[in-house]
């Protein structure tokens, strides 16, 4: 496991309302964060139906999309985050 001390993670999760994918993505992410990034992350959940301009600004097509805003560079992980290994890979936690 990589060192994460001193790092801060800013994450944004884009979802479309309360779809099964959205619900699964939120629960998968929260579980993962609790295990891997306890206390050093900040998560914002954005509903693209309520905030389409935010999706436009960040050119989001697919939902759910998890964007790692910090640390840079920006990473995007698409899907309900059920593939834990890929999520960790995408967040540089492996």
């Amino acid at each position, binding site marked *: 496991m990589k060192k994460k001390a001193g790092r801060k993670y800013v994450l944004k999760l*884009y*979802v*479309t*309302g309360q*779809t099964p*994918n959205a619900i*699964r*993505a939120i629960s*998968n992410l929260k579980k993962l964060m609790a295990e891997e990034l306890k206390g050093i992350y900040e998560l914002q959940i954005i509903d*693209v*139906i309520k905030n*389409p*301009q935010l*999706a*436009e600004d960040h*050119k*989001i*097509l*697919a*939902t*759910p*999309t998890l964007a790692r805003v910090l640390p840079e*560079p*920006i*990473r*995007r*992980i*698409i*899907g*309900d*985050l*059920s*593939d834990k290994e*890929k*999520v960790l*890979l*995408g967040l540089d936690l492996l």
Partner: protein
Amino acid sequence: MLKKKVVKKNQIFGKVDTGIEGFSVISEGGLPKGRATLISGTSGSGKTIYSIEFLWRGMNKYKENGVFVTFEETPGDICKNVESLGWDLRTMEKTGKLAFVDASPTEGDKILAGSYDFGALIARIIYAIKKVKAKRVAIDSITALFPQYQDAGLIRRELFNLTAALKRIGITTILTSERIEEYGEVARFGVEEFVSDNVIILRNVLEGEKRRRTIEILKFRGTVHQKGEFPFTISKIGFKILPLSGLELIQRSSMKRITLGNKELDRMTGGGLFRDSIILVSGPTGTGKTTMSTTFVDSGCNNGERCILFAYEESQNQLVRNGLSWGVDLTKHINKGLLRVVCRYPETMGPEDHLLFIKDQLEDFKPNRLVVDSLSAMERVLSLNSFRDFVISLTSYTKLKEIAGLFTSTSKTLLGGESITEAHISTLTDAIVILRYVEMHGEMRRGITVIKMRGSNHEKEIREFEIGNNGINIKEPFSGVEGIMTGMARSIILAEEYELKKLG
């Protein structure tokens, strides 16, 4: 209650006039309203231009605002690309008539981790539609989704959701997709065509070293359209589709005859050319086709008719000089404004552009008589299909405008034979005059005959003619000779004498 439902079911779908020139003719009114249409074509076939023009005409002509969803190029690039067509998309965007949804590729990695949908894309498009109160949406091109998201089944399902959502709110949508072959699968990934009710194919075919653009409506679900490929060109101001068969239906026909400029020739054709018909003069080089054209034009101008002459083989000066040698003064007519001579090598333009050029000239000059000398020069630069289309389009146009036309064609061999031009367009013209060299007694003489005169009697003889100081001089029929048309003229009398001698 029940009755109302039935009526609704039977309602014919409305159409949306795209504003693209010629499209409403081939689509019989436009794109099906409130539905999605797939425009598929190879790279460079004009898909993006078509979709932007659909929006542009909507905004400017019909007060229907638009949304452009771009998957490949950035909005900035698109604005720049169409500037040359005079389409200022930036201003449209600023004034709230147009909104972009930028779905062009983003930098950085994308990792797929679990199931997903295109909810964000759909939300963005709906948001953009609401922002500008759009009625038209163009999505260019959905092909770009496939390499990025890989799962063709999922993309298909999501595109279907998207078009269904747009349909619900009454949006007329264009989706573009790329195809690999001109005559093959509708689109590259084999699923694109299933997300829309209507499919249009744009082609850019290489035919005998020439590029030929065509548009074909493959299907319009639940409504009518014209079938087959129609040529189009992308001009300085956008798409121009040339609807060929669309024109033919409204031709009137006239019983009024006009002179061909030569009394004997008028007699041979049973009284001259019908006001709105086309005559084809065919013969080998030097038999007098240009002379006949000049005579035709001269007699028209002398009657105060306006004439236009497209000369593909000679310059204006040459024509004038040659005219003078048989007593025709073209300069006089030109100065009076009754005659316009257009000299141009057909090689200088593409076929569709050339046809448009001719149409523009005709519309501008409004002639009563038109001469094309010669069609064979056009044939030189066109593929067979294009040439046929060209002639069909030209003849139907002149008939529509009640212009009398004289076209010439050059046959390949000096004696007998027929030109390719003749073989392919003879059914399209109303009258045919054949000029031939006749070899007799060690001399080259000229023969003329009328082989077709639609709607009228005509002389059947092959007559001898000469070109002298007074132009064409038609004489008596050849007698005692046969085989002129095949180029194997032989004297019947001589042959008979020979046979008799043999008998002793």
